[in-house]
């Protein structure tokens, strides 16, 4: 990453939508878009202009209004104010059906495919080729195969979607929109579920599709993606489009600055530098000392998954106090089951879990919490938060027995704890009585982090701690995790973001197919070294 921050000013810094675009008729031109949901103004005067045949990044923190703006474009939402023009035609307030007919196709973050149907059937769904009133399967297969070859989106048309990898499934999603004649492709955070090689492949696909004349808008908050594949960038912050720039002429720092409105340190900070004395201590009597200091250890753990008998297959490791052990890996390789088993949300088939010297393998969730386990779950909407509950109530979830006496909730304690955490973790808005549902993704995650870090704990399970969280909050959360580590907590980090694992961990393990296939100190790890382990191409027995 370049350190030079002198992104050029002037020429391209023109007001978006006010004539900044170069080509005569932009493929998409939205101006002055307002959209309000109750108390939340999701878009205010947002504007974007996308030239035909370019890959355009729409970046911004979570809750900045990117998805809202794109839903307005795709007809899913009607704007309160503003105009939308596609190919020079005013289409303000159109419906999804009209948008699809006009060639605007959206690829959603969550796949909308039917697993029990084949690729071809999924692609043609809603526009099935028919002969004499019946579904012409052969033609569907042929058409999809043809389109697949034409666009370079290689997928086996006759396979069941259920049997596809995530990367393949995503290609099917893109193919689906192309089949419907999409000339403008909207992609909502398409890399969230992909492994590094799959991401590289996706970029190739997008370039091919672009070269065939399709305009692409990429919604993302990952700056390396923006740098890798886009030509123009529109930045959103708090509902407004605050900057527009050419990718060639800016730097990740420049984009981040525009996203958060202040300087952001993007440097991948390495693990804490240990003093020689510490290193010697650990070399000498590591296991024993670690346990004495309250570590988390797992021995020969086997956990059942939803479909697999051994989603976690004979895993053993120890997290020492004052250490972050990062588990890298493509999602779905047993990380979820591993953490749920440690947290007490899933039964271990066999093996042992030891927390601070105490065996907790068969303890309840609450007992583990009382024994010193803290847990940032990967799915905050399902697990981490009760969305209808207030911020203050969510800040005590899991500790309700500490905030009540003789069965009755201590409302004053709940309120004052709420006020304290909101201030300490800069949660916004600051109203503790607000339903957590109304907060932005980043602030919701801060509620979870605040709760789990402020309790008394020995070990922390941090699963995807910054998923769907904006740049500013990522920085904040990473700092909070480092502080907890430096305060002597044992942290087990699971993240699909390799950069996050590399940036935070002291040691790194790779999980593949339910096993730990590699374990190394941070100093020996890099994306290039970990990549082959993540895809299963390499295995070591070092675990």
């Amino acid at each position: 990453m370049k350190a030079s921050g002198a992104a050029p000013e002037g020429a391209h810094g023109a007001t978006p939508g006010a004539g900044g675009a170069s080509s005569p008729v932009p493929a998409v031109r939205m101006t002055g878009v307002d959209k309000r949901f109750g108390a939340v103004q999701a878009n205010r005067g947002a504007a974007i202009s996308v030239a035909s045949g370019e890959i355009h990044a729409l970046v911004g923190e979570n809750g900045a209004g990117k998805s809202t703006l794109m839903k307005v474009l795709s007809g899913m939402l009607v704007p309160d104010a503003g105009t939308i023009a596609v190919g020079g035609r005013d289409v303000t307030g159109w419906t999804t059906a009209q948008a699809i007919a006009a060639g605007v196709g959206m690829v959603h973050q969550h796949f909308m495919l039917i697993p029990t149907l084949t690729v071809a059937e999924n692609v043609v769904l809603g526009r099935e080729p028919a002969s004499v009133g019946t579904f012409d399967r052969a033609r569907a297969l042929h058409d999809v195969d043809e389109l697949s070859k034409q666009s370079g989106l290689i997928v086996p048309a006759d396979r069941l979607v259920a049997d596809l990898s995530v990367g393949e499934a995503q290609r099917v999603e893109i193919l689906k929109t192309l089949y419907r004649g999409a000339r403008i492709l909207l992609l909502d955070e398409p890399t969230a579920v992909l492994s590094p090689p799959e991401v590289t492949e996706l970029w190739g696909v997008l370039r091919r599709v672009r070269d065939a004349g399709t305009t692409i808008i990429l919604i993302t908050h990952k700056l390396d993606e923006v740098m890798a594949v886009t030509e123009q960038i529109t930045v959103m912050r708090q509902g407004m489009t605050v900057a527009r720039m050419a990718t060639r002429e800016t730097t990740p720092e420049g984009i981040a600055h525009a996203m958060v409105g202040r300087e952001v340190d993007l440097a991948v900070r390495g693990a804490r530098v240990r003093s020689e004395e510490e290193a010697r201590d650990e070399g000498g009597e590591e296991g024993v000392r670690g346990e004495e200091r309250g570590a988390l250890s797992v021995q020969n753990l086997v956990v059942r998954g939803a479909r697999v008998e051994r989603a976690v297959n004979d895993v053993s490791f120890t997290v020492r106090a004052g250490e972050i052990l990062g588990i890298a890996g493509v999602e779905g390789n047993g990380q979820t089951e591993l953490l749920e088993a440690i947290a007490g949300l899933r039964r271990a088939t066999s093996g042992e879990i030891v927390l601070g010297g105490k065996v907790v393998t068969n303890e309840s969730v609450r007992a583990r919490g009382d024994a010193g386990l803290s847990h940032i779950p990967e799915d905050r909407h399902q697990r981490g938060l009760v969305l209808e509950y207030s911020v203050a109530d969510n800040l005590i979830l899991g500790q309700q027995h500490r905030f009540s006496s003789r069965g009755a909730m201590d409302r004053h304690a709940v309120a004052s704890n709420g006020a304290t955490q909101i201030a300490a973790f800069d949660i916004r808005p600051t109203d503790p009585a607000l339903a957590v549902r109304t907060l932005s993704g980043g602030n919701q995650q801060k509620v979870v982090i605040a709760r789990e870090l402020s309790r008394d704990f020995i070990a922390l399970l941090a699963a995807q701690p910054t998923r769907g969280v904006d740049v500013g909050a990522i920085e904040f959360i990473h700092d909070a995790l480092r502080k907890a580590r430096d305060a002597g907590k044992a942290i087990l980090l699971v993240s699909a973001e390799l950069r996050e694992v590399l940036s935070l961990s002291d040691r790194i393990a790779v999980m593949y197919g339910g096993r730990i296939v590699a374990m190394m100190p941070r100093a020996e790890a890099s994306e290039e070294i970990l990549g082959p382990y993540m895809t299963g191409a390499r295995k070591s027995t070092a675990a």
Partner: protein
Amino acid sequence: MSGHTGAFAEPTPVPDATARAMRRRAALEEALLPPLVALAVILVAGDLLILAYGEAPGAVWRLLAEGTWGNAYGIGQVLYKATTLTCTGLAVAFALRAGLFNIGAEGQLAAGGFGAALAGLALPAGTPSLVAIVICVGAAALCGGAVGAVPGVLRARFGAHEVIVTIMMNFIVLALLNYVVAAKLHVPETLHTPTIRAGAVPRLASSIEAFHGSAASWTIVIVAAAVIGVAWYLFRTRAGFELRAVGLQPAAAEYGGVNVPRAWRNALMLSGAIAGLGGVNYVLGYKGYYEDGFAGGAGFLGIAVALVGRNHPLGVVIAALFFATLSQGGLAINAMVPKQMVDVLQGIVILAVAAAVPEVRRLVRQAARR
């Protein structure tokens, strides 16, 4: 760093005071909208029905108002019906707060009444009134709770769906009670038990002469206490905090250290106990004996009461009064139009509230935005 943002003003956040005001507004909307929608629908649909029957709507409505809230007897009758409906509505609402649909309030209500009668029969005649009432009321809750515990335990242990189990329990309980009363306990020539020896709750008329002849009793106070108790339990206790979390998001509750199956079991058991409490109104407060079939659909109507009352204890009371008024009003207008008209209206209200409230709320919001 570069100044890409220069030309744009910093956005101003929505102030907290505004947010609070909007929240209060939303809460008020939530509480008032269902009854208002129900009322509007009743007036329109009722007019049409009355006209179709060839009567003047104004005259029929006047008759209905006079027969319900127009005199002390009418008020007493409405209160009596509302008391039972409050219990069954509260029971359904309570279970729904835990995410469970208890359709078994009918059987639980009957079981509660039977329990109260059994206790009243078993106690010696000289038992001090207060002691006897406490024991009989406890027996009602216990029997209702026992019936509710069956689907509760089955759900918690085996994952059996509570809708199926509660609805089947209705048949089992009602048939069983029918057998026990008919075979062992009935007064000859009737289908009711002998009169209780102790535990009778005095009628309202015993203190307030104007209510003379109406069935309303001081059970109202017992049920009012239950309403307050349930509200307190749901919104002020740890168990209530956990129960509502289970209802909203079981996965989050589990993560928060709640034993979800146990919460299910307790919720259905307590729901049954609340429904069982309703039996007190008839057995201890009105007739003094258990009679086969006394529940008469009040358990099922409780589902509608919970729906219109939006699962809130206070809303349930308002909804219970509403449905009680309709039911009593049906008798009042029987001279002009058949009382079955009220049954039709009840059905329409339930459909309207279920279907129309979200739609009306959307329209209100839209109008407010302009």
